[in-house]
């Protein structure tokens, strides 16, 4: 019953399929990042967004998946696990998707003023979303977890589906994303600097660890209770969202604070 309702809800609200953090989580990531942008970076970014906030575009990539020109971005939302080197048709290893896209965009944007306005605009939309996605434990796509299903009572559901958008909702349905950001963004400047250090590759490795932890919390018999499971992973979810926010700010500052 619960499952039917939840899936109906998602079907009603969602135009995309995989939602990672859901609208609330992605908006929260963007709110946190925005608070840590330098004034110059913020002004530069918003001049490319018609004066809108990055929050507006936090889930834009999810909303626009069905747009044919966006077809190429379909796989960008996930990363695979490093131990599971994927290969392309020619047998060459494929780098992780969102991480490699983030790296590509960052280097492309190093001199953003030389790019067309529309390219900068879309790159910002990509970054605000992908940095969130790469921190989402179920967006680390490894062979054992991808097809993994769990059971709650009689219902069977994919692990990815169970997470998507719901973990946060389970506990914080009453909070607006703006308030969530205020609650989560409570670290000292030194701590934030530590979170922001490193490269997207380092963060990816760290993401894999968290992903494993989240998967390990699923009982061996795959029988879960959403409530118990969500209570266990909520700390991970909140932590990943906060870090995604700080790191998004670091990336955007490195590009736009000039």
């Amino acid at each position: 019953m619960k499952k039917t309702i939840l899936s109906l809800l998602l079907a009603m609200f969602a135009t995309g399929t995989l939602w990672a953090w859901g609208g609330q989580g992605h908006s929260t990531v963007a709110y946190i990042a925005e608070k840590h942008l330098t004034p110059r970076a913020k002004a530069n970014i918003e001049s490319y967004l018609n004066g809108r906030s990055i929050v507006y575009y936090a889930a834009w990539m999810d909303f626009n998946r069905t747009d044919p020109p966006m077809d190429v971005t379909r796989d960008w939302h996930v990363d695979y696990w490093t131990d599971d080197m994927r290969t392309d048709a020619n047998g060459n290893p494929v780098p992780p998707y969102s991480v490699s896209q983030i790296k590509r965009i960052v280097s492309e944007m190093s001199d953003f003023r030389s790019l067309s306005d529309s390219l900068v605009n879309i790159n910002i939309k990509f970054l605000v979303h992908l940095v969130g996605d790469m921190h989402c434990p179920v967006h680390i796509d490894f062979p054992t977890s991808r097809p993994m299903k769990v059971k709650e009572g009689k219902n069977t559901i994919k692990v990815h589906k169970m997470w998507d958008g719901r973990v946060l909702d389970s506990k914080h349905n009453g909070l607006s994303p703006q308030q969530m950001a205020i609650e989560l963004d409570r670290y000292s400047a030194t701590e934030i600097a530590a979170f922001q250090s490193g490269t997207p590759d380092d963060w990816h490795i760290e993401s894999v660890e968290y992903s494993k932890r989240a998967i390990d919390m699923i009982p061996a018999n795959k029988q879960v209770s959403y409530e118990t499971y969500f209570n266990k992973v909520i700390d991970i979810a909140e932590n990943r969202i906060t870090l995604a926010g700080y790191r998004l700010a670091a990336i955007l500052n490195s590009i736009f604070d000039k």
Partner: protein
Amino acid sequence: MKRLILTLIAILTIANITECFAWGRDGHATIAYIAERHLTPKAKENIEKCIDGRSIVYYASWLDNHRAEHKSWGKLSHVCHYDIHSFESIGKPHKYMKSTINKLKKYRELTDSARKVTIYHFVHSFGDYHCPGHVALYDRTGEKPKRIHTSSYDFYLNAKKSRWNYHKLWDAGIIQILHPDWGYMDWAHALDSSISQEYIDKVTAGTWEDWLQDVAKTTHTVYNIFNRVPKIKNAEDALDKDLSVVDGQMLNEFGEYASEQLLNAGLRMAKIINEIFGE
């Protein structure tokens, strides 16, 4: 968990049972809140004094909620009529808006309750008039003027082909569909983060009649989004009409259009309130 689901159910139930008009509640609140953010301190203080110290956002949907108690309001025309080619205003041009704004200008002379009600009318209707659902377009090239009926822009939503009507797209709040977890503060923050003075000057130039004409023109572009896709018949639909199938991508285009209208309506509302209450 149970509580969560029940809360969600409650939200959905209420979304189904309450009547919403034009932008839906969140849209109207967003317009009023964007306006509030652009009020001068003096204008904000003055207008709030007239409405028991509350925010204008509180009254953004008052008219929808209380129209049942005031039958005569139902007869007020909330639709603007325009020629589809010249965008000339036809019929009685915005009589209701005109009288509301005129009353507002003389707010000092009104009784307390008349002043309040005029403000409630203004903060709601001004948003209404920025909604494409409130624009009627006419083709006058033939012998008789022909209304382009919005009902011809009913559509099927997604591949599942649930039938929607044009009005519901705006009424049920396209924006609520896109961001169910955003409130009006989130919307205002997202849309109105660092709007340039240049943009404000551009959209608030001219008179309110010009602004409404501008809305009529853009309504045309909304129709074109529908016209872009071929129409199909759905065997299960009792009415057996050819309708467009709207997909997620088109919903985004409507969302984008709606976002722009909400911002413009808010900025323009602020301009009028500042002019009247700013001194």
